[in-house]
């Protein structure tokens, strides 16, 4: 049994403009200790999927259907008290913008301690001690003195570290990191990512990493799910995704990464923008932007299938899936692209790293 199994999760937002399906039949799983990435543009449904795991979707959003099994138990069936016991304790979250995720009027130390006191039942002194140790571990200098600082007295990088310490404070089994480094500059980003990885290893915590940055995925994740307009469009092991992408959207994402030593004059982009979720295109929602789209794409909605066999791969246990009609024999043409690996092939390194 996987640590987390999400099956056919559908989340709707009832806005004034109409019903928005922010997550549409999303299925995936996260194994114990695994690092699972969810990638996609803003509004692809990454965060909504993650918030659903803690049942923190707020009005006008509603989890419409599906199952979220954590250690085999369906979170959506739990009572409010049971969910609260999971939150912070077994599933914790690193928020995207540490500055807004920290309450400005309480000290950083207190905000971490209160979680420890509440979830682990520690008294004030023990919680304080543990908090100071955590702050030290995430790399905050003079942790003891910094305990009583307010969030505005921390730098951006330190705030993010504090939020990480907060998420790790009660030894969760699953850590949801929602764009944990987007608000930071690149040098600090690398450090923080290393730290998240290290700490996750140390505490044997599984990570669900949400990002729009494929570089971050390459650096951290074991397996990846690509989302587009609320739907999972591709699932693959991380190396596979980079060296053998199967969905035209993933290919588009890859080719829009700038590379050092690139000879192209212009950075390639995916034409158009993600559709308004109130009014999703018929058929495949990516077809208006897809260079390989055919008439069939406007009519038939592709389901996730195994790209090699064309067999159904909608379930939580599918490791390789792409939602494109090219793999179900509905297209006349082929997906006409080649993947070119520049420089030395780091696949070998990646392989070594995983031993």
């Amino acid at each position: 049994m996987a640590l987390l199994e999400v099956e056919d999760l559908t989340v709707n937002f009832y806005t004034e403009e109409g019903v928005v399906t922010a997550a549409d039949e999303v299925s995936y799983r996260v194994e114990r200790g695994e690092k699972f990435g969810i990638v996609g543009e803003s509004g692809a449904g990454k965060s909504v999927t993650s918030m659903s795991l803690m049942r923190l979707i707020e009005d006008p959003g509603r989890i419409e259907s599906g199952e979220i099994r954590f250690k085999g138990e369906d979170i959506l069936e739990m009572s409010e008290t049971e969910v609260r016991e999971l939150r912070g304790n077994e599933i914790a979250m690193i928020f995207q913008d540490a500055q807004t995720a920290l309450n400005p009027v309480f000290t950083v130390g207190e905000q971490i301690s209160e979680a420890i006191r509440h979830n682990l039942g520690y008294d004030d002194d023990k919680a304080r001690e543990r908090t100071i140790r955590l702050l030290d571990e995430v790399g905050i200098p003079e942790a003891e003195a910094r305990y009583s600082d307010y969030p505005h007295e921390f730098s951006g990088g330190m705030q993010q570290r504090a939020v990480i310490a907060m998420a790790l404070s009660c030894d969760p089994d699953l850590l949801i990191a929602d764009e944990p480094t987007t608000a930071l500059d690149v040098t600090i980003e690398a450090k923080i990512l290393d730290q998240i990885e290290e700490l996750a290893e140390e505490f044997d915590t599984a990570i669900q990493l949400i990002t729009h940055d494929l570089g971050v995925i390459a650096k951290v994740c074991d397996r990846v799910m690509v989302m587009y307009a609320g739907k999972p469009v591709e699932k693959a092991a991380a190396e596979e995704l980079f060296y053998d992408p199967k969905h035209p959207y993933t290919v588009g994402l890859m080719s829009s990464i700038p590379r050092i030593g690139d000879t192209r004059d212009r950075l390639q982009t995916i034409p158009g923008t993600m559709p308004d979720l109130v009014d999703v295109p018929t058929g495949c929602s990516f077809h208006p932007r897809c260079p390989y789209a055919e008439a069939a794409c406007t009519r038939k909605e592709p389901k996730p299938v195994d790209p090699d066999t064309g067999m159904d791969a909608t379930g939580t246990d599918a490791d390789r899936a792409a939602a494109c009609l090219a793999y179900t024999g509905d297209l006349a043409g082929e997906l006409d692209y080649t993947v070119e690996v520049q420089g030395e092939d780091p696949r070998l390194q990646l392989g070594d790293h995983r031993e």
Partner: protein
Amino acid sequence: MGLRRFVLKRVLLTVPILFGVSVITFVLVNVAPGDPVDVIVAFNPDIGPAEKAQMREYYGLDQPVWAQYLRWVGNLLQGDLGEAITRNRSVNAIFMSRLPETIVLGLFGWAFAIIIAIPTGIYAAVRKDEMGDHVSRIIALSGISIPNFWLGLMLILFGALTFNLWPVLPPRKPLLHPDTLWFLLLPGITIGTASASTMMRIMRSSMAEEINKEYVTAARAKGLPERTVILKHVLRNSLISVTTVAAFLTAGIVSGSVVVEVVFSWPGLGREFVQALNARETNLILAITLFTGVALVIANLLADIVYALLDPRIRYG
């Protein structure tokens, strides 16, 4: 120390404010027809024009307005608020004997406003757009719209006459005697209702705004019970704007006390003010007006100090 300097600066700023208040009041009272001498004469038909002129000269009322003002300021700087001519008493004595009554009534009104406004505001914010929110909105709107003299009369009618729970007139007992405090409940409610309504609406909207912030989601994600999330994390952030309004509403409470003290025959500064106006007692009017100004300045100063206590990002220096 930063705070001490800040307080000192604010206290010094009071001086020009009070100067402005006193000049305007002085001019307004003097452009209104009649003076205390006319009031005394009205009850004594025997006094002729010569004696009137003599009396005016005695009290300095024959001087030009600016000279009268300068004399008043000179006396004020020596702690002398002047004389209430028609009453033959010093304004200091009248003021000091009425001040505690008004302060206690004001505190009652204020306490009532806060005790009602904060919990109902929280409730309305948490139940935003639900039945409870709508009901509280209607009640708040009524609270703001009801004139306080009418509310006071209704409370006397039902509380004192129909149900006989309260005396109609204030008991002749010391100010802090339980009977007196019990009597004060009705005028306190009357004075505090409008403020409670305004404060409650501010509490609601400021909390409803805070509740959508990410730190609230983060607090929930930590597994904290909703009660802690609201009463610890959201409340403290929402109280900042309520503090501003609470200070501002002090003006309403002080001015409200004028009407309410008359309705409830409460011997405070408000009722004294009405009598002073009728008797054209310039000195007494000035004293009470200045007191209002000082009360407002103090309320705002307290609010500034409370800000710093609530929000560590606010520091003075």
